[in-house]
């Protein structure tokens, strides 16, 4: 509890938000706050300025394109996504969001916040990587679009620079997706998770085993385990799992997610 002193701004446009971020290298975007505020309570991180994005309507909402492409504003909450008729075009999104934390967190936490935090135990980084999401980043010099496979750079680090914002998440059409996790209690924090998508080829992204989701390609579910083994993972140890156990779960869950994806 008890944050360090911090300044607070609530911009009314993306341009203003970018200006606020550029004005101080200790400025950080505040999305739903369901990760960042907790980190600040521990004083493990203490931004000088919080740039609250909650007033930016252009960062909200879900649009379904005629080709089935979903365009999701990063400030969309998990609950909004679960309830969205459009988002049902890619059912895995709502299914996975319904397993994140709890009602209160889902009511406030955002899709953009989840991917930008890139905590290794988060659900969405591997999902985005597996289903081939593209992330649009806006900065002073305009927009660029990064595939999810290049978006995650490290623990708590993504391609979004300190003076930039994630402004759009684009998800291609598809429905042959799967997600499997072993969690701390029912639907708790992920110990290892894996997302899979069959879209021409079978792509699997494994979370919690490295600083960023590990992407695996396989011919079929039958070859997934060998493919995971070939990736020679060295997952971290912690109180919930040894490195060896995580490596084992990675194989099992990758295969389970793949079978789900192919089965749909």
């Amino acid at each position: 509890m008890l944050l360090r002193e911090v300044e607070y701004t609530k911009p009314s446009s993306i341009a203003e938000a970018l200006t606020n971020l550029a004005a101080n290298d200790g400025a950080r975007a505040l999305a739903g706050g369901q990760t960042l505020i907790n980190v600040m309570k521990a004083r493990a991180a203490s931004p000088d300025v919080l740039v609250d994005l909650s007033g930016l309507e252009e960062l909200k909402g879900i649009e379904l394109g005629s080709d089935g492409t979903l365009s999701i504003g990063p400030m969309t909450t998990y609950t909004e996504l679960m309830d969205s008729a459009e988002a049902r075009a890619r059912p895995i999104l709502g299914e996975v969001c319904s397993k994140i934390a709890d009602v209160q967190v889902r009511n406030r936490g955002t899709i953009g916040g989840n991917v930008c935090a890139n905590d290794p135990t988060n659900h969405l980084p591997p999902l985005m990587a597996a289903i081939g999401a593209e992330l649009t980043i806006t900065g002073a010099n305009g927009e660029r679009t990064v595939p999810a496979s290049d978006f995650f750079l490290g623990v708590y680090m993504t391609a979004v620079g300190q003076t930039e914002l994630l402004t759009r998440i684009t998800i291609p059409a598809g429905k042959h997706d799967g997600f499997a996790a072993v969690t701390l209690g029912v639907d708790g924090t992920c110990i290892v998770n894996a997302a899979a998508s069959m879209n021409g080829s079978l792509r699997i992204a494994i979370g919690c085993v490295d600083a960023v989701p590990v992407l695996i390609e396989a011919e079929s579910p039958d070859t997934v385990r060998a493919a995971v083994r070939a990736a020679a993972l060295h997952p971290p140890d912690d109180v919930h799992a040894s490195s060896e156990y995580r490596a084992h779960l990675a194989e099992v869950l990758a295969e389970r997610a793949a079978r789900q994806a192919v089965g749909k």
Partner: protein
Amino acid sequence: MTTIAPEKVEVGKSLLGESVPRKEDRRLTQGQGVFVDDIKRHGMGYLHFVRSPYAHAHITSIDVSKAEEIKGVYGTLTGEEVAVLTDPFFQIASEPGGRIKDFSLAVGKVRFVGEPVVAVVAETRELARDASELVEVEYEPLDALVDARVALESDAPVLHDDAGGNLMWEGVYEWGDLDQAFAEADQVIKIDELHFHRFNSTPLECDGALVEYNRGTGQWTIHTNNQFPGFAAIMMGPAMRCGLDKLRFVTQDIGGGFGNKITSHPQLVTCCLLSRKLNRPIQWTEWRTDFHMSMSHGNERWFRDTEVAVKDDGTLLGFRTKALDDAGAWLRYEPLGGVIWAQVTPGMYRWRHIRVEFTQVATNKAPVSPNRGYSRMQHLWFTERVIDIVARELGLDPVDVRKRNYIRAEDMPYETPNGCIYDSGDYAQMLDIALDLIGWDSMGEKRRDAESRGKRLGVGIGSTLDSGTNNFGQSRMINPELQFSGNNEVATVKLDIFGEIVVTLGTTPQGQGHETTASQVVAEILNCSLDDVHVRAGHDSYWNSHAGFSGTYASQFAVTGLSAVKGATEMLREEIKKLASVIFGGVPVEALELAEGGVRIKDNPEAFLPFMACGAIINANNAGLPEDLGVTLNCRYVYRPPFQVPDIERKFGNLTLTYAAQIHVAVVEVDPETGYYDIVDYAAVDDCGKRINPQIVEGQVMGATAQAIGAVMHETFEYDEDGNLLTPNFYDYHVPHALDMPPLHTGAIESPSPFTPLGTKGMGEGGGAGIHAVCAAIQDATGKIVTDSHNPYHRVWELMR
């Protein structure tokens, strides 16, 4: 949920045994409870502790000047000042643990991560924390000792030089004839090592206090959620060099305790010293991470080199084991855990030959203190593990081994090998009920069904005892110099001017519904309505309604608390009659009865004196009453259970008054590929003698069960090799939430205690049965012996490899 309960006997609609709604709920459901952090005072300063980042280090310097310079900072307190202003806390231990010097802040050295080193007080909570970051403490790190098993090795880091090593206490307990038992045995089952892990009940409200110092009277008023003020007082008074009259403890609502709120006396001393030093009220709130790092972990214990003497048919003759207990860095209630387990020495079984070598050591971890099931849970987990391991080794059914060895209903009251008296019970019957509740007969089918889904099903039994109402004389087995014995509790019941029946208790309830059950007893005796009885919320030493052992801990309210209420209410009833006898002009008291909120002549109910009149006469209209009337209508009763001082030499005697019993059965399904498992069915059968309010009793059973499920599956205070706590918050310390709860069936029988005034037994701590049951179920499902009380998925996976 299914429930099996004894049929209600309708005898003149007694209130005792009725699930009346709780009096506490009205305020608590409206957010109108008063918890310690809700209390504010003008000009109060918020206290924040600077805590040790190291598990073990010398403090080479402390500089508070930068913190004190900040505007809004009221002041600081360091260990150096504490060492001048106070004496070390009294130690319960004999040699060598008794030699350690424990102060309220670290002096010269830190011994666990999170240990308070400096206290900073400021105008706001945030500012106090800001300023604490400016306190400069230089440390010289030392090697940390985190594994109790190497604590006594010659090269182990030593925590307390005063004690000359890490041994805090040791004692050998032996009863019966071990040589004979092992000679008679068909087989000796050997178990190298069993480990009971570190966790606690993590009450949702952490510790806290608001302390005011009255400079004129030299008295402190301590608003706190400490659950055993009697103990806090005897720790704090001598340390602070003041009489206990100078320490006024006040509590109202407490957000859960489970034993974990007994040992906050060091923090309370710091608050007291600062309120005097800074001449203002001091507010201290402990946050979750603080609590996890520094408060009241449950005892971690190893059982090594265990040998069990058994017959081929599963008859248990005896066992010997070496218990090694990890006390953490300080002895704040320890080494009492070194004897408390002996209340349940044989568990529920009839073996007569037992030897336990008990050793307690210090380590660089948070100090241990009572946790629901204190010290008995560890020992009972051990006896239950032994039963299931024996059954497996002999190829016998764990149900049969239990039934063959359970102490039988006809053996009650049963004297254990160490002189404890199990008052009543029927364990075999409880087991039958529990097995029925989970559909024992169809278990084969369920196993096959699970297998068809790729899962492995396992069933496990946990049978356990909840011993209540301590005989504090057992502390002398730890230290013969101690002058404690017996137990007591106080209640006062008075009739006020307008007829209010006002009850004050010595207890500090944390959700056990004392206001409700005390009202039931009072209303029953005074033959009035529950609404007429006003039980004061919480505890206040000013009420003069407490004695040395007052508090809420160790499964005893239904015995000590309610017996005190009963005693005081009966005194009041007799006084009311005595007064009425005079008012009615000499009608003999035998001719009077209490009814409908007053007293009347049995044969002439028209002659009725309402309580209001009685209260008014004595309190405000008493001219002309006989001089020797001897009626105050303000009755104080101290209940004292019938105890003798135990035989310290033989370590023999009755250590506790009542023995509630629990049989739990858990059914688990394990995913053999991942070790992930779910509890798919669960039964809990309880016997706590006469139940005053069955709903409250069942609530305790449920809550304790949930805590056991959390402990066995997820909850652990684990440290890395440097002494960093790896589970310092609810993110990594996963407590069960709504989706984690299995289906639950509850059952109950009532075997009234022959030793207590109401036939009640203390209860609430029997949930440890859940740990035993789940361990046994995992053993059943995996076919591998379970040697740890903590079985997260990765451990189950490792078991199956």
